[in-house]
C-alpha cells in the first residue's frame, strides 16, 4: 500500500518540472484542465483486484517502477520506420518517438483542403477551436486515474480533423515508437480524431517498442464521428514484451455515423485496453473487433463498453484470443441498452483458444437492457485447438507446425477479414505467421 502512495507522490511531485518544460504551453486554454486532472489524480486511488472492473487484472507490477518522461531526443533510422509500413499501401504517416512528434519521419500525402493531421501539442499551443470543443469531453478524468494522469500530463499525441464532407482516401498511419535503453520511460500519447458530418477517414494507431525494454504507455484516444461520418480505426499493438500498456479509447457517435475499430495485439507484460463507444443519436453503426495473441506470462485485458443511448443503432463486437504458455486473458464486454434505445441490435462474441494447459482466460459478457424491443446476443467460448481438424490437415500431408498455423489463421480470420484494407490484412497475417510458425 505504501508503495502505491509513493508512486502517486512521484507523479504528483514531477508535475512542477513538467510545467516548466511546457514553455509557453502553460498559457494554452487547456492548462487549467491539466491542473484539475492533477488534483483529481491525487484524490483517486490506483485500482486493485478488489475493484470489480479490475478483478482479474492486477496492476501491482506496473506500480513497481518510477517511470520518467523522456527528455532526450532519440534518433530512429529511416529503415526501421520503413519496416513498420504496410506493403503496397499509400498512406500518410505521422511518427512519435518516445511520446514526441517527429517532423523528420512524418510524411503527409496530399490531404483535402482543411484536413489537419499532426501533433496535438501544436494545436494546443494554437488554441485550435475544434480541439478546445472536444478535448477531454469524452474521456472523463474524474473517475479514471489513468485518464487523470494522462490529462494532467497532456503533452503530445495525434490530432486529426476532417471537416464536413471531406473524404481522406489514403489511410493515416500513426506510429508511436518507444525506444529508451537507458531510462524506463512513460509516454502518454493523447489523441483526438474528429470526423465531421459526411466525412470519411481511416486511422491506424500503431504502437511499437524495443524487444526487452521496460516502459509504460498510457494512451488516451478520443474519437468523434459526427452525422453520417465514416471512421475506420485500427490499432496495432506490437510493444516490448516487458512493457506496460494502458489505453482508453472513447468514441462519440452521432446520427447515422459508422465507426469500426480493430485491435490487433501481441501483448505486453501487462495490457489493458478499454474501448468505449456511445451512440448519441439514432441510426449509428459500430463494430468493435479484436484479436490478441499472447504468450509467456503476459496479461492482456480488453474492456469494452457499448452504450446504446439512442434507438435504431447496431453494434457488433467480436474479440478473439490465442493464448499460449502461462499467459492470461481477460475480456469484459458490457453492453448497455438504455430505456430509449428501442430497435437496438447488439451482438457480442468472445472466443479464445488456449494452446497450453497453463494459459487462462476470464471472460465476462455483461448485458444491461432497459428497453423492451431490442435484439441482443452474446457468447463466449474458451477451447483448445480442434484435434480432428488438425488430424484432417495432417492426413493430407501438411506438417504439425503448418497445420497449427493454418488453424490459427482460420480462427483469426473473421476478425481480420472485416478490415477493409488488404495490405493491412496481409501485415496482420504475417504477424500471426511470425508469432506461431517459427
Amino acid at each position: 500500500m505504501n508503495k502505491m502512495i509513493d508512486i502517486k507522490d512521484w507523479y504528483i511531485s514531477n508535475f512542477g518540472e513538467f510545467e516548466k518544460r511546457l514553455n509557453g504551453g502553460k498559457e494554452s486554454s487547456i492548462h487549467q484542465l491539466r491542473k484539475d486532472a492533477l488534483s483529481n489524480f491525487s484524490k483517486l486511488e490506483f485500482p486493485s483486484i478488489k475493484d470489480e472492473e479490475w478483478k482479474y487484472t492486477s496492476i501491482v507490477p506496473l506500480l513497481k517502477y518510477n517511470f520518467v518522461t523522456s527528455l532526450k531526443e532519440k534518433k530512429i533510422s529511416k529503415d526501421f520506420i520503413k519496416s513498420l509500413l504496410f506493403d503496397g499501401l499509400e498512406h500518410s504517416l505521422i511518427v512519435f518517438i518516445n511520446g514526441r512528434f517527429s517532423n523528420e519521419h512524418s510524411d503527409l500525402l496530399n490531404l483535402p483542403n482543411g484536413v489537419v493531421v499532426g501533433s496535438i501539442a501544436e494545436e494546443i499551443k494554437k488554441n485550435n477551436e475544434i480541439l478546445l470543443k472536444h478535448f477531454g469531453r469524452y474521456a472523463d478524468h474524474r473517475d479514471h486515474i489513468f485518464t487523470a494522469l494522462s490529462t494532467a500530463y497532456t503533452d503530445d499525441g495525434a490530432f486529426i480533423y476532417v471537416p464536413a464532407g471531406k473524404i481522406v482516401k489514403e489511410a493515416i498511419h500513426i506510429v508511436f515508437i518507444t525506444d529508451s535503453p537507458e531510462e524506463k520511460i512513460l509516454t502518454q500519447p493523447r489523441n483526438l480524431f474528429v470526423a465531421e458530418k459526411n466525412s470519411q477517414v481511416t486511422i491506424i494507431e500503431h504502437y511499437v517498442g524495443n524487444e526487452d525494454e521496460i516502459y509504460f504507455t498510457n494512451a488516451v484516444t478520443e474519437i468523434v464521428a459526427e452525422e453520417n461520418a465514416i471512421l475506420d480505426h485500427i490499432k496495432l499493438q506490437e510493444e516490448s514484451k516487458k512493457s506496460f500498456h494502458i489505453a482508453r479509447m472513447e468514441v462519440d457517435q452521432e446520427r447515422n455515423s459508422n465507426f469500426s475499430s480493430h485491435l490487433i495485439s501481441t501483448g505486453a507484460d501487462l495490457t489493458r485496453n478499454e474501448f468505449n463507444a456511445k451512440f448519441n443519436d439514432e441510426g449509428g453503426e459500430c463494430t468493435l473487433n479484436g484479436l490478441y495473441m499472447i504468450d509467456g506470462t503476459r496479461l492482456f485485458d480488453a474492456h469494452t463498453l457499448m452504450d446504446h443511448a439512442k434507438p435504431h443503432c447496431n453494434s457488433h463486437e467480436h474479440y478473439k484470443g490465442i493464448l499460449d504458455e502461462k499467459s492470461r486473458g481477460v475480456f469484459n464486454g458490457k453492453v448497455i441498452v438504455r430505456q430509449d434505445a428501442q430497435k437496438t441490435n447488439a451482438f457480442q462474441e468472445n472466443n479464445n483458444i488456449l494452446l497450453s494447459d497453463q494459459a487462462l482466460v476470464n471472460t465476462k459478457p455483461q448485458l444491461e437492457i432497459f428497453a423492451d424491443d431490442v435484439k441482443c446476443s452474446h457468447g463466449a467460448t474458451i477451447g483448445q485447438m480442434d484435434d480432428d481438424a488438425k488430424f484432417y490437415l495432417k492426413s493430407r500431408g501438411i506438417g504439425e507446425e503448418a497445420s497449427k498455423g493454418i488453424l490459427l489463421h482460420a480462427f483469426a480470420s473473421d476478425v481480420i477479414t472485416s478490415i477493409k484494407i488488404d495490405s493491412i490484412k496481409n501485415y496482420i497475417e504475417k504477424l500471426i505467421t511470425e508469432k506461431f510458425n517459427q
Partner: protein
Amino acid sequence: MLEIKNLHAGIEGNEILKGIDLKVNAGEVHAIMGPNGSGKSTLAQVLAGREEYEVKEGKVIYNGKNLLDLAPEDRAREGVFLAFQYPVEIPGVSNTNLLKTALNEIRKYHGEEELDTIEFLSLIKEKMNLVELDQKFLSRSVNEGFSGGEKKRNEIFQMAVLQPKLAILDETDSGLDIDALKIVANGVNKLRSKDNATIVVTHYQRLLNYIVPDFVHVLYNGKIVKSGGKELALELEAKGYDWIKNGKEELVNQ
C-alpha cells in the same frame, strides 16, 4: 504395396482390431466389408495414423517402410490417402488453401518444386470436372456447410489432386443418394491404375456395383473372417451378415 501382419489395435484400452492380416498389391482394389462395430473404421484410422489409436501388436509394411513409424503427415506424403467417413469442417480455411498447402508440402517432401498458381489452378480445374464440383466451391471453407454428398465428393476431389498410391475410402458411400454415389464411384474408377491401390471400406454391397473390387474381405469382431472375389460381396448382400456370424453367439443387426 501394403502388408498388414497380425495387427492388434484399440482405443482407450479396448482392443478393436484383434489380429488383421491383409496384403494389397499395386493395381488392386480391395473391399473390406463388415457389420457396424466390426473394426472397419478403426483399421482405416490406424493406417492413416490417428494418434488416439494404440497399436498393441503387429506390423504394417508399406512400400518397404514400416508405416506405423511414420507421422500421419509423412504417411500422406508417402502416398497414403484416407477419405474420411466424416469429413471434418474447418471454418476459415478455404479448399484452395488446403489443397495448395498439401500439394506443395508433398512436393517439397519429394524434393520437387512448388507449383505456381497457374499450374495449380489448371490441375484443380481438371480434377474438379472429375467429381462434378462447381468452381465457386474452391473459395468456400473446407466442408463447412456442405451437404453429405458434397463432403464425400470433396474427399474424392482431394484424392484426385493429391494422387495417392494407396487410397483408403472409409464408408465413402454411406448416406449418398444414387447420383452422388455414381459420381463418387466414377471419380474413383478414373483414378485407378496399375500403379496404385484402393481399399474400399463399406457396409453395403451397393457401392461395389460401381467400384468393382478384385478382392472382398469380411471383417468381423476385429478379424478378417472370410476373403474372396467380388462374388463374395453379392453373397453377403443376399445372405446378410448373420451368415458370417453363423457359429457366433450374438446377433448384430445389419
